[in-house]
């Protein structure tokens, strides 16, 4: 037996009304995905297409003495082998990173991390390309590798970036500071209690199910370069390719099809992309490159890798100050994802949700012989590191001062009347009622009962832990007065066209990777214009057919593109009002709006629907004076501020005292992300982020041995949570609308990852410290590391 889906499209269930606007609406995009008809990059076939594969370095640091491609070139089916020398003639041997550094596309002089790209083979099929990669003979002279960031600046440390003129050490970026040092020192001097911890947020990886890849199709006759590539910021990529390759920007077209997850890993431009483009320019045919999983894990998109010396103090039971000295490991090339003015991203949001008297933050970055990065893995530019730090430190202070971690937070929260609230490091939080949200989480958890249960279990020798966190994020980068990436304002465009029948197409610069934009952005138009969401088609992912904007990451789609779509729809609605006035032979100011219709004030029966206005706008009838025909509009939205979602998370863990295995029994997430466009999609985002956060807290880590060999180069070693590790997530919500966003919404996608990692870490330490005296251990809390911590020797993760 089976069932049908109405019109092959998602429809309402038997008892459900399909909302015109916000509400639970099943997703439009499901129709193709549940049939196996998603169109991902590797599904693309173009006539004459050939396949590229990358040769990667086995060494973390080595001089390249020679590269001999003779055998590979002689292999049947091989069309070309591209090396750094070939790229030099095209001016493509090096490329700029998003942090104003340079990165080798293919290594010519030496390799600087294991997995670095050395050569690019182009062949008739994937198997042949892989065969030929193994036939390239490279002679290396191994050099000592720098793997530990703490040793990168030692005198005598091998110089990694000898390609950079004037670079004499491994400093990637000089010390960057925020806050007030003198005031912070004073607050610490007056404190009742100070907690000090060295906290590492180790290297981890977004590892979306679909790896990176590209099909580049250069037409030598027209000069047109068509790029098929699942990336999170197609317009910005086009600009970068124009700059790198010197191609006219209007001859470059990027088409993102369906993307199998991104999580920040598909923001940067990778060497494989440039190789595919160069390959297509050289070969004159389309070139496809699909990264293998090992390449993805060892060469692309690592995240975090922050070493944070942290101090937090309190007075009279309230948190008063925070001092952080942070060392960032950027790997061999600095391609950190961040707005240009912020070399440590938004790390200085580290004051969290608390009304501090003073704080001071320092961040310095070094080069190491590790893969370049780091990307914001489900994170708004280092906020994850910041929230991890502050929420670990609140618990550290609670342990050291022997107070309940919930009480300490409750006493220290920024109060509702203080918003908009300026933090001691310069952020202006927009809105919040933190204690209310915390209380919802405590009620769902049954916090007092859990504490009692914990006491009883402790008496029996059982290890149960309760973790609490409260986070505030700043998402939706961002206002052009404050931030840009590579000189590009972080604004988003939207283009709305209502056709004569009243059906509409809205084009976005945001780029979904699974977030459900085709549904939720149609709902914004529906809410604002009162036409059913199924009458709104959402277009994105093609730079020729969508307005300029900076893409989807940092939870910015709803805050920025969502704002753009609301504003463009209101613009259309305003135009509709002028037309309606002509249709109804009255003045625009005499009209009132109800969803989908302008009507004459005082006579609700006399009105014009959006559909009738659209028909009129394209008809031969006369338009209001000075108004063009048609019903459409275009905007670029510049958000006035970031949005500041927040949440209270509580986790319960049980630890096997014999093995150190941590089982997350419960995970409660209460999020306040302002107005929710589609609660089903919001909940889904939270579920997914919690799973990734659980992974980072318990198992996901990228480590290296002393020679720089990556020890987590496949899913055998880079462990991702399965259905068995994940508990049945328990969600709650409060709604505090964003005061400056057109529809009162805030971003949410990253909140669960940001909040859950410290929550689970706090729970593990909460389980261990009374019985085993563990006052801190670094993540991941895998059995071996938890066991070591129980034996009194917690180990750093790397």
């Amino acid at each position, binding site marked *: 037996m089976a069932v049908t889906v109405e019109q092959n499209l998602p429809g309402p269930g038997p008892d459900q009304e399909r909302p015109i606007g916000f509400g639970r609406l099943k997703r439009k995009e499901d129709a193709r995905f549940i049939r196996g008809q998603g169109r991902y990059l590797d599904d693309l076939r173009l006539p004459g297409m050939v396949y590229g594969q990358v040769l990667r370095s086995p060494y973390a640091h080595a001089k390249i003495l020679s590269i001999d491609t003779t055998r590979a070139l002689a292999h049947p089916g091989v069309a070309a082998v591209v090396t750094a020398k070939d790229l030099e003639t095209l001016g493509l041997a090096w490329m700029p990173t998003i942090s104003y550094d340079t990165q080798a596309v293919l290594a010519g002089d030496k390799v600087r991390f294991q997995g670095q790209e050395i050569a690019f083979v182009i062949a008739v099929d994937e198997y042949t390309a892989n065969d030929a990669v193994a036939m390239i003979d490279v002679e290396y002279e191994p050099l000592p590798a720098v793997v530990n960031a703490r040793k990168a600046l030692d005198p005598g440390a091998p110089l990694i970036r000898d390609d950079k003129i004037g670079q004499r050490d491994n400093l990637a970026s000089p010390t960057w500071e925020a806050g007030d040092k003198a005031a912070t020192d004073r607050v610490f001097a007056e404190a009742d209690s100070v907690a000090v911890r060295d906290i590492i947020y180790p290297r981890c990886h977004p590892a979306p199910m679909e790896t990176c890849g590209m099909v580049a199709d250069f037409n030598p006759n027209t000069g047109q370069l068509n790029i098929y590539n699942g990336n999170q910021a197609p317009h910005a990529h086009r600009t970068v390719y124009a700059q790198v390759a010197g191609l006219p920007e209007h001859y470059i077209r990027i088409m993102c099809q369906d993307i199998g997850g991104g999580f920040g890993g598909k923001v940067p431009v990778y060497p494989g992309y440039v190789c595919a483009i160069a390959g297509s320019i050289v070969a004159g045919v389309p070139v496809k490159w699909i990264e293998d999983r090992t390449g993805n894990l060892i060469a692309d998109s690592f995240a975090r890798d922050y070493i944070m010396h942290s101090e937090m103090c309190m007075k009279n039971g309230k948190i008063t100050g925070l001092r952080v000295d942070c060392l960032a490991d950027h790997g061999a090339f600095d391609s950190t994802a961040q707005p240009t003015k912020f070399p440590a991203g938004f790390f200085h949001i580290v004051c969290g949700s608390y009304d501090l008297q003073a704080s001071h933050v320092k961040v310095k970055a070094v080069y190491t012989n590790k893969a370049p990065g780091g990307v914001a893995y489900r994170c708004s530019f280092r906020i994850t590191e910041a929230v991890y730090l502050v929420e670990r430190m609140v618990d550290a202070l609670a342990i050291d001062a022997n107070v309940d971690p919930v009480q300490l937070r409750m006493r220290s929260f920024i109060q509702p009347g203080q918003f908009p609230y300026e933090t001691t490091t310069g952020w202006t939080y927009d809105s919040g009622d933190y204690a209310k949200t915390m209380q919802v989480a405590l009620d769902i958890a049954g916090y007092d009962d859990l504490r009692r249960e914990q006491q009883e279990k402790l008496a029996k020798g059982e290890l149960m832990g309760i973790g609490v966190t409260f986070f505030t994020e700043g998402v939706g980068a961002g206002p052009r007065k404050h931030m840009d990436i590579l000189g590009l304002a972080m604004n988003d465009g939207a283009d709305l066209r209502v056709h004569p029948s009243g059906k509409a197409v809205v084009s976005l610069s945001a780029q979904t990777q699974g977030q459900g934009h085709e549904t939720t952005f149609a709902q914004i138009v529906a809410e604002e214009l009162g036409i059913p969401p199924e009458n709104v088609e959402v277009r994105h992912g093609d730079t020729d057919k969508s307005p300029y904007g900076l893409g989807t990451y940092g939870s910015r789609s709803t805050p920025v593109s969502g704002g753009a779509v609301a504003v463009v729809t209101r613009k259309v609605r305003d135009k509709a009002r002028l037309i309606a006035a002509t249709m109804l032979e009255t003045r625009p100011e005499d009209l009132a709006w109800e969803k989908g219709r302008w009507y004459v004030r005082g006579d609700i029966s006399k009105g014009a629907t959006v559909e009738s206005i659209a028909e009129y706008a394209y008809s031969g009838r006369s338009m209001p004076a000075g108004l063009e025909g048609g019903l459409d509009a275009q905007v670029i939205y510049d958000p006035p501020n970031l949005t500041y979602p927040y949440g209270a998370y509580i986790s319960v863990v049980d630890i096997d005292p014999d093995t150190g295995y941590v089982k997350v029994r419960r995970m409660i997430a209460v999020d306040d992300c302002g107005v929710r466009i589609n609660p089903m999609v919001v909940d889904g985002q939270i579920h997914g982020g919690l799973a990734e956060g659980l992974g980072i807290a318990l198992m996901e880590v990228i480590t290296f041995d002393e020679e720089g060999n990556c020890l987590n180069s496949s*899913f055998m070693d880079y462990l991702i949570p399965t*259905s068995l590790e994940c508990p049945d997530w328990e969600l709650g919500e409060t709604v505090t609308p964003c005061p400056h966003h057109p529809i009162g919404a805030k971003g949410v996608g990253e909140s669960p990852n940001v909040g859950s990692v410290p929550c689970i870490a706090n729970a593990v330490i909460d389980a261990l410290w009374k019985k085993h005296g563990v006052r801190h251990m670094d993540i991941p809390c895998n059995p071996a590391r938890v066991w070591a911590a129980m034996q009194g020797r917690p180990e750093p993760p790397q």
Partner: protein
Amino acid sequence: MQVSINVNGEMYTREIEPRLLLVHFIRESIELHGTHWGCDTSNCGACVVLMDGKPIKSCTCLAAMAEGHEITTVEALEVDGVLDPIQQGFHEQHALHCGFCTPGMLMTTRALLNENPDPSELEIRTAISGAICRCTGYKNIVSAVRWAADYEATAK
């Protein structure tokens, strides 16, 4: 070498290299792109298809080994424009985001329901534990399987 493989009830005869993996036979030789590839190590489950009704990872099976067996892919779930309840369940319960793991998850859970029409939460979680979903956190996948199980129980 030449192989003849029954995929979704149709025989496909192709000249292949002996080392060709079944996932590549499905995706490249006969161009059914619903079956995906996500890792090189048999961990992720994006490539799960049914072989004689049992879920297998098609990246860990040579195409040549599939001869004489019946392979079923996601493309066969919908029959004459009518969705399989498991497909409908994934849609109803928002059990997919990016959709990349979805075909493997659908085939895995279809096989589960064929074997066990009334699975418990733990049985569902155990059945899908060989497949990774990076987006959903699994909760809604569990709900989707229950939705389909309940639907099929009612329809009988």
